[in-house]
């Protein structure tokens, strides 16, 4: 499970069955300094989040388990909105 920032939305109306109505968002994983770490990726948003938000996400098979229907071809899902992440007393980053 990782920290990330939502950087955009992806709209794809025509998609495989089971994923109807699940928002897709671009997320940029972050390191412990709040700086980008690795490639941005597309994740299903199972909680209400949007661009600028700090979030945590899960990758792999568990991404699909977070979706309303768990047998879907998904490999990343935003699990939560992060209000604050603190590293040794200093706020790492905040949602915009």
């Amino acid at each position, binding site marked *: 499970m*990782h920290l990330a920032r939502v950087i955009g939305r992806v709209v794809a109306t025509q998609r495989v069955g089971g994923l109807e109505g699940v928002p897709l968002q671009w997320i940029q994983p972050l390191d412990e300094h709040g700086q980008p770490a690795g490639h941005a990726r597309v994740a299903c948003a199972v909680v209400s989040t949007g661009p600028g938000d700090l979030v945590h996400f*899960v990758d*792999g098979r*568990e991404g699909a388990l977070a979706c309303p229907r768990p047998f879907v071809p998904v490999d990343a899902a935003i*699990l939560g909105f992060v209000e604050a992440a603190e590293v040794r007393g200093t706020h790492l980053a905040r949602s915009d």
Partner: protein
Amino acid sequence: MFLAEVIGTVVSPVQHPALDGERLLLLRVLQPDGSPAAETRIALDRAGAGVGERVLVVDEGNSGRQLVGRKDAPVKTVIVGVVDYVTLDGRLTYDALH
């Protein structure tokens, strides 16, 4: 499983129901000699860990689901132990008491 240092806390008031009531901590992944790997993780704390401690972490979904007690929990990274000491090639590389 791997070892990590707890470096911070994560407050997430809106999240998947399987994570309700769970404590989330920010981790820096460590190499066997104790030096940091260039990776961070967020984990559920099931071992009562605190910031600054070294912990044993499982990063596998089935284990995570067992710990949470829900077959459908989208959980992968869980702190399962607090490390007392570590040796590598017969040499002490970490001791929680010193």
